[in-house]
């Protein structure tokens, strides 16, 4: 049992380190530690413009989302790895070749994910806060409490996604039922018991009022989610040979005005048939944005509706830029390398598909503006959001080529990404706060975006095909 667990750790480490080298990956937690340490010194400054409870909420929600992200990748790992590397095999999927029960493998897999990502993300982040606390005259109580509550937040997200995927692997109906039950319970807690956001996120209750009771609720929720996912778990995925009509030719014809219409048609067929389009839209786009909107709305008394809309436009832009990763999840680069295509041709096609997908954030922002009564500022918010989205896309293309979801774990790439995205977006938020009309300055980002795209194409066309 322990041998299996240690092998899974080695496997996870090697999976990452083969992609960007041992040192580059080993530096990743160091980078998180450094960011948290330096970020802690900004807390007094942030408190002057933002209520501390909003910051606490955002950080905890961020760790829930991280748990969701880690869990999703872990469970889809085989599929993603096969698409990315051609053929890959993980220990978690070796139930048929090893004399170990599937549930035992799954249990090891979950423990591995918890420990591994605790040391990769949670511990370095809290370590930075702990180290900074004496300099800020904070004492150790709060940093240690944050370590506890962020760990609980991370585990809540991780176990929630395990339960969802266990339900999904049983049947799509079971998956829908699990979602409805989870949503109903969340609504009941928030509205029925008047618990507010702390009821939806029990680790927050622990943060605000550490007691045996709040701790028991938070840990109990995690255990319940985990136990249910173990009960539902099965590795018997129903797979049948389905027959499909030729959708590519008609769709390609319909998109004929686009330069890369054949590849764009393929992207949309991939999104539709894989289910990734819907799944990503819910879990990577709508869910985080709704959550962030709810949180920002709770700060309604502190910030005006227009300012909230502007912050939200920037956040939507950054999250919408990750749609590029949706489009790069499907195939190994090897699938294109024996055809008369350059890497840049494939990237340009993905960018055309990305541009079409921007209809989703446009509709979403429009809905938010309607809902919040700030429709008059919608054009400004849209310019701001789309500019940020295309700029962040250009940064991702330049840094990661066709492998954004894997290369982002390289410490060097991640730091560069943060440094290139952070300052411009902060400046734009400040400008939009001064006057919403200034949000349109976001359009200036399109100039560096164009430069980044051009240099990105040249960089990746010249690069050797590295296998991912």
């Amino acid at each position, binding site marked *: 049992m322990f041998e299996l667990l240690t092998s899974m750790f080695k496997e996870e480490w090697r999976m990452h380190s083969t992609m960007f080298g041992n040192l580059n990956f080993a530096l990743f937690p160091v980078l998180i530690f450094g960011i948290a340490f330096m970020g802690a010194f900004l807390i007094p400054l942030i408190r002057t413009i933002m209520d501390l409870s909003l910051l606490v909420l955002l950080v905890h929600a961020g760790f829930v989302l991280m748990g969701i992200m880690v869990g999703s990748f872990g469970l889809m790992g085989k599929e993603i790895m096969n698409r990315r590397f*051609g053929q890959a095999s993980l220990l978690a999927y070796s139930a048929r070749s090893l004399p170990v029960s599937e549930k035992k493998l799954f249990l090891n897999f979950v423990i591995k994910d918890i420990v591994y990502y605790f040391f990769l993300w949670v511990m370095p982040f809290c370590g930075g806060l702990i180290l900074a606390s004496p300099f800020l005259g904070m004492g150790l109580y709060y940093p240690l409490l944050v370590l506890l509550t962020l760990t609980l937040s991370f585990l809540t997200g991780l176990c929630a996604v395990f339960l969802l995927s266990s339900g999904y692997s049983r049947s799509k109906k079971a998956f829908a039922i699990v979602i409805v039950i989870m949503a109903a319970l969340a609504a009941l807690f928030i509205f029925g018991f008047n618990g507010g956001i702390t009821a939806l996120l029990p680790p927050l209750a622990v943060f605000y009022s550490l007691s045996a009771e709040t701790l028991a609720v938070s840990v109990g929720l995690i255990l319940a989610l985990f136990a249910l996912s173990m009960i539902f778990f099965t590795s018997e995925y129903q797979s049948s040979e389905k027959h*499909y009509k030729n959708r*590519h030719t008609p769709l390609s014809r319909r998109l004929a005005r686009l330069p890369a219409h054949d*590849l764009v048609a393929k992207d949309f067929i991939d999104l539709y048939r894989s289910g990734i389009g819907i799944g990503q839209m819910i879990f990577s786009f709508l869910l985080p944005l709704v959550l962030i909107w709810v949180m920002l709305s709770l700060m309604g008394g502190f910030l005006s509706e227009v300012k909230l809309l502007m912050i939200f436009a920037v956040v939507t832009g950054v999250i919408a830029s990750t749609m590029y990763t949706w489009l790069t999840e499907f195939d190994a680069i090897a699938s294109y390398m024996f055809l008369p*295509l350059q890497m840049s041709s494939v990237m340009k096609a993905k960018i055309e598909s990305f541009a079409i997908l921007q209809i989703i954030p446009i509709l979403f922002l429009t809905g938010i503006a309607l809902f919040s009564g700030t429709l008059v500022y919608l054009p400004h918010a849209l310019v701001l959001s789309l500019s940020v989205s295309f700029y962040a896309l250009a940064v991702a293309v330049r840094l990661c080529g066709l492998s954004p979801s894997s290369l982002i774990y390289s410490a060097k790439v991640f730091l560069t990404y943060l440094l290139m995205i952070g300052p411009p977006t902060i400046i734009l938020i400040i400008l939009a706060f001064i006057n919403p009309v200034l949000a349109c300055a976001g359009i200036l980002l399109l100039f560096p975006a164009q430069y980044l795209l051009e240099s990105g194409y040249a960089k990746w066309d010249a690069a050797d095909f590295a296998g991912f």
Partner: protein
Amino acid sequence: MQSAITTNTLTKCFGDLKAVDSVTLSVKKGSLFGLLGQNGSGKTTMIKMLTGQMKPSSGTAQVLGTDPSTEPVAVRQVVGIIPEQETPPSFLTSEEYLSLVGKIRNLEDIEEKSQWWFDYLDFGDKKDVLCKDLSRGTRQKLMFAQAFLHKPELALIDEPLINLDPVMQRKVKRFLTDYVKSGNTIFLSTHILEIAEDICTDFAILHKGKLLHTGTVKELTDKNIHLDDFFMDLVERGPMDV
């Protein structure tokens, strides 16, 4: 005779490892050339360099008169390639995939051309099945079809028959020999020596990245030497004269 492929001290290093070490060879037009070697001998790296998927560390190559390291797309436009791992796009059907390849290659009558391959390789019943749900053998057939859809003057094939059943292997071997007889060139890499002895006209042996020998299969058969014996001798004892 004109060459379809020439390389001059072609070398590829991965860190300290020389995967391909100063290989100089020439592949005649109209030949069925087999690049033979054990696993890890550098065969796949050679094909990747010849098709512009990988840049050489040093040395040069010409494929149908074009340098693949500077004009990879031009090379891939005129040749057909079957890679070692069959990786058609997961969520397209076989028919859609061939249609996509045909459009990328600007072909006419893609449907008819695809149908010919579905019939010839006997997998028409799988044309509306997603590539991810195909067996490895059917995927190999699909990759074969995509490589020859545009009737290339030169095809580079990495382990051509590895997933095919005996009946299909015979059919594919016959196709390859006929294809060469009609004036085209095939460059195939394999470690299955029976295949090479069966269909190749010329061959080269690559061992730990170094070229040990080039020659014709006829030279061996004239001397009543089996290719596998020759290969074993060469690899185990070092270079010898035929």
